[in-house]
């Protein structure tokens, strides 16, 4: 049995964990970043879309090595096929964002953590907590070179949707079928990507009950084609719905699938408390996800950055009480709490709408030029064009 001691141990090297490790190391803490996977970024569990803004805010230079596609517009397709296009005009360089190559991106973020001095160990499965009375004092792990115990002043749980570390610590993170989208995705080649700069979202209770299907282009011949089904509305595995969707699209049906991936996306809103004793919970593990879109990279990176910074500064000040560490909770809620709440409400409205209502909404939005993709702007337009629909949407204003 190997024993090690660090200021901060981070469990999980996805975007949340690597940003936490980077921030903690940068602020002077000794940091160990652990991941069970032998290769970071694999398997891919997401649509890989990310806005440009969080990268800029976090000082990460976009790198062509992990950008598979750049997109500048969004197209929403209603159940009966009515298209609503939204182009982003007011963003620097006219970009909405990127379709990433997570296999490279995640490694890049871990490298940024390592550059700040964090130790990184992959192929290392955390299988329990070290407890000192009621306090968490580290993690137990196993890897190719045996078992180890890592003691740490602060543990950061960034172990994704599975969120076992938080559960061992007594935080209830188990998802109910209403609060999870079961997602399947094909990376497809040999397809006809008509608009390589446009992200497409398809809605409808038949093709994708309680969720949406997406086509995110990676250049002109390749795309992530995926589907999310609300757990409580699934009748078959998500991949079956995805196969039907692909077969129904002429531009896709002759394509070849070069990768199958998927995952569970938490869409029930963040957990009520993300700090417990000397444990900080970040990213998907804390359910810090945009419930409307299912996007979580942005909030995971921002929350991870805050968590790492708070942990290191608390340790340096000699006070790692829960009260001191609650600064993490306060800061991330200030930065994105309200936004995540609104998306959660918007999701509930979307889920309550029938296919007919979605078609009506699409018709009302058709032909309107949006300067910026913002929920508020869309709602403002709606108040003018369809007051009846507004009754349902009122909770969002």
């Amino acid at each position: 049995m190997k024993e090690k001691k660090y200021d901060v141990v981070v469990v999980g090297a996805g975007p949340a964990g690597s940003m936490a490790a980077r921030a903690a190391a940068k602020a002077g803490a000794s940091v160990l970043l652990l991941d069970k996977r032998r290769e970071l970024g694999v398997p891919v569990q997401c649509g890989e879309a990310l806005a440009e803004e969080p990268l800029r805010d976090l000082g990460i230079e976009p790198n062509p090595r992990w950008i598979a596609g750049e997109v500048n517009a969004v197209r929403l397709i209603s159940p009966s096929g009515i298209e609503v296009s939204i182009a982003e005009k007011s963003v620097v360089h006219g970009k909405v964002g990127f379709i990433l190559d997570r296999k490279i991106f995640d490694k890049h973020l871990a490298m940024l953590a390592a550059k700040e001095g964090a130790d990184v160990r992959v192929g290392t499965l955390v299988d329990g907590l070290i407890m000192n009375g009621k306090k968490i004092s580290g993690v137990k792990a196993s890897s190719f070179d045996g078992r180890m115990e890592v003691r740490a002043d602060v543990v950061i749980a960034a172990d994704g949707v599975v969120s076992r570390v938080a559960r061992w610590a007594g935080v209830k993170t188990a998802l109910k079928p209403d609060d999870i989208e079961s997602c399947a995705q094909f990376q497809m080649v040999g397809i006809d990507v008509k608009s390589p700069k446009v992200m497409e979202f398809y809605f409808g209770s038949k093709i994708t009950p309680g969720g949406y299907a997406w086509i995110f282009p990676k250049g002109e011949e390749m795309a992530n084609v995926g589907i999310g089904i609300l757990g409580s509305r699934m009748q078959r595995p998500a991949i079956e719905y995805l196969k039907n969707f692909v077969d129904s699209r002429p531009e896709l049906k002759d394509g070849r699938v070069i990768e199958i991936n998927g995952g569970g996306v938490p869409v029930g809103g963040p957990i009520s408390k993300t700090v417990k004793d000397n444990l900080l919970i970040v990213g998907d593990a804390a359910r810090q996800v945009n419930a409307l879109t299912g996007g979580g990279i942005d909030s995971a990176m921002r929350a991870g950055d805050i968590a790492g910074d708070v942990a290191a500064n608390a340790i340096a000040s000699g006070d790692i009480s829960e009260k001191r560490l609650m600064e993490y909770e306060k800061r991330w809620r200030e930065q994105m709490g309200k936004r995540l709440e609104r998306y959660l409400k918007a999701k509930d409205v979307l889920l309550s709408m029938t296919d007919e209502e979605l078609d009506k909404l699409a018709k009302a939005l058709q032909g309107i030029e949006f300067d910026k993709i913002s929920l508020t702007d869309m709602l403002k337009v709606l108040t003018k064009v369809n007051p009846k629909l507004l009754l349902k949407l009122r909770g969002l204003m």
Partner: protein
Amino acid sequence: MMKVDAGVCIRCGACASVCPVNAIEVADVRVQADKSCTNCGICMKICPVGAIILERKKV
């Protein structure tokens, strides 16, 4: 006890995220439940690729 078809499983962890008793471990190469599995079937329902079956515990 839930059993996973390793040939179908994509190791995404959706099953573990909904398990009410935290019985499922998603390791790098395999996914398995421990004895606390109650055969409730939520994991099977949520699995995006249909990789999970339930086996009755042997008496």
